[in-house]
């Protein structure tokens, strides 16, 4: 620290210079959060998301839905990781939540239009094109693509619909409880009985609001968000791999946190009954066609395992 010299005459700074010594012993932390974009250096893939490089995707403007899915996944990742951040930036959380809601709304709109269009088609009536492009089509950089390539998204996406909004709401609610002295008085309506949500989703994917009377617990919301990730992330993962190491008696959850088993796979012993039920329901819903572009990453599993074990 420089010792000050005032404009006239010499001055002695009253600040103690101990910090000078302390600094030499501190280990220097490089700011790890910022990664440089495209400086010829290979960027690290995030450990918990098997995402394709944003950069690559930006170069191929054809697939609007892919891009949207990418933004969706990135946002979900951020919401999840945001809890670990020591500095809770409310602004950042709100902006990400708004982005998620926007995408969710758009998906919902498209899926309902598609559903109505398909219903009309199957009703044997020739109605030209009912498929209006939804009013608020968003782009990352380029113009929206056609409907066709996004078809797979709708099925899994509509399942995610309610889980998404529940997760966002719960995260915001938890922020309130954590940060503010006076938590909001309203009883959460659409809370995470996410297993229930997934169940209903499997049966009927043109859905109504789900009322749950379970009180909200921050723990559940963590699992809740993972529920969403699991349906599109962990396809083809076997239950055995995931549950080998952990002691399920410790884990007092009735929420399925991992993806579906391939059909017919037996649930390993020691797992709660409702877990098994949820798995089969997840199985049926997700087998309708999760996005094929998102592949399983072992890092996903590690991350989820950490959450499970730490809770």
């Amino acid at each position, binding site marked *: *620290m*420089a*010792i*000050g*010299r*005032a*404009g*006239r*005459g010499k*001055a002695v*700074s*009253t*600040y103690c210079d101990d910090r*000078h010594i302390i*600094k*030499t012993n501190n280990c*220097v*932390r490089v*700011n790890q*959060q*910022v*990664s*440089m*974009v*495209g*400086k*010829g250096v290979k960027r690290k893939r995030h450990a918990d998301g098997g995402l394709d490089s*944003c950069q690559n995707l*930006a170069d191929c403007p054809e697939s609007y839905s892919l*891009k*949207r899915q*990418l*933004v969706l996944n*990135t946002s979900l990742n951020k919401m999840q990781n945001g809890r670990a951040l*020591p500095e*809770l*930036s*409310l*602004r950042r959380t*709100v*902006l990400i939540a*708004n*982005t998620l809601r*926007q*995408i969710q709304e758009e998906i919902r709109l498209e899926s309902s239009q598609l559903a109505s269009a398909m219903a009309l088609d199957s009703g044997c009536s020739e109605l030209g094109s009912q498929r209006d492009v939804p009013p*608020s089509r*968003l*782009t*990352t*950089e380029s113009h929206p693509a056609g409907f066709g390539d996004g078809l797979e998204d709708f099925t899994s996406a509509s399942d995610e619909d309610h889980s998404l909004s529940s997760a*966002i*709401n719960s995260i*915001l*609610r938890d922020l*309130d409880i*954590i940060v*503010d002295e006076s938590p*909001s*008085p*309203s009883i959460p309506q659409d809370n995470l009985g996410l297993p229930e949500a997934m169940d209903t989703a499997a049966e009927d994917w043109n859905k109504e609001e789900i009322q749950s009377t379970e009180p909200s617990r921050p723990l559940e919301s963590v699992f809740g968000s993972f529920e969403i990730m699991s349906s599109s992330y962990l396809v083809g993962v076997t239950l055995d791999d995931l549950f080998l190491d952990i002691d399920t008696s410790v884990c007092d959850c009735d929420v399925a946190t991992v993806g579906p088993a391939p059909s017919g796979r037996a649930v390993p012993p020691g797992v709660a009954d409702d877990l098994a039920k949820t798995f089969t329901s997840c199985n049926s819903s997700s087998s309708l066609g999760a996005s094929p572009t998102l592949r399983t990453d072992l890092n996903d599993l590690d991350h989820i395992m950490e959450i499970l074990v730490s809770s």
Partner: protein
Amino acid sequence: MEEEIDTRKINNSFLRDHNYATEADIISTVEFNNTGELLATGDKGGRVVIFQREQESKNQSHRRGEYNVYSTFQSHEPEFDYLKSLEIEEKINKIRWLPQQNAAYFLLSTNDKTVKLWKISERDKRPEGYNLKDEDGRIKDPSTITTLRVPVLRPMDLMVEASPRRVFANAHTYHINSISVNSDYETYMSADDLRINLWHLEITNRSFNIVDIKPANMEELTEVITAAEFHPHQCNMFVYSSSKGTIRLCDMRASALCDKHSKLFEEPEDPSNRSFFSEIISSISDVKFSHSGRYMMTRDYLTVKVWDLNMENRPIETYQVHEYLRSKLCSLYENDCIFDKFECVWNGSDSVIMTGSYNNFFRMFDRNTKRDVTLEASRENSKPRAILKPRKVCMGGKRKKDEISVDSLDFSKKILHTAWHPSENIIAVAATNNLYIFQDKVN
């Protein structure tokens, strides 16, 4: 705009020659005082360093007053909120000077939760000849005292002391992002994500809430307050900006709680530029009134906008800071750079505005000539007293000599905080842990 600049940088980092920096040294705010004589910087470690301009001497007429360190003190310490199990960062978010009323200087500095009023004073005399204490300060044995004498003041080496005079605490649940001193010089406001409080400078145990945008149900939260400022001349008016790209002008005479705005400034979105990130990049990171009080300037992620206070539906001027980033928004979202909060400043005459960018670039826009320039604050590219060379970023295609391509930009080197001297062409630019001070060349 052609500005010849004489450079002089002051490096207050301990690790001078290394490429990495201790995080505690990252400068988080820069502010000139009302005369420009003093320049205060706050850093992530909770320290405040004040620089003072040298008096111009006849001997060294070619050296127009340089800034030297005047005082350094620890303003805020890290705290832990045991009730909520949350760490409270000691990082100084904002510093605002009070106008000088006597020989001492006063400033307000704030971290996420607590605002403090600091008094910085000089001491150049000290009393000698106490009766009950000897020169070392030890108490004398009363029985040895035989005569009485009057202590006299003798000159000593100039010492600059900083002492906390007021601590304004426990009024904010969320993180404080702005403080602003009112033109009445008696009150000031502090704004966090959801609320704005009005304080009297003398009273620390009470503050008045004047804006509250917290919804009853937190699930409905979609907008937060990002910046707030009092009008420079009208003590009843202030503005606050939001994360949705709106600015609200409020009049405190209208009601005690100014939730209802007097004016709402918002520019309709350009439909051709719509993307997933439209809302995020429209979030306003800084709002500043012009010195005249007639205009205000807002900074969002890609642009700087100048608004006429009499026209609410659109800004009168829009300047593109780094439009070449529009195609990179997805990557910037991924690495969180899209959430960076850049500040903007006016010059003394409100004719030039300045704001920062990435790669240690900062931009200046001349409102009259409509010319703009990109400059770089870096050690390698500027030697003391060298003239800054304008930089250029090329979008794609052929890269001309001396141009930088968008993909080579270093997004970890961002200039978020800048300040402009209130009357002269002297600017202070904070680049991570380095402070650069640039002056107009005099010939």
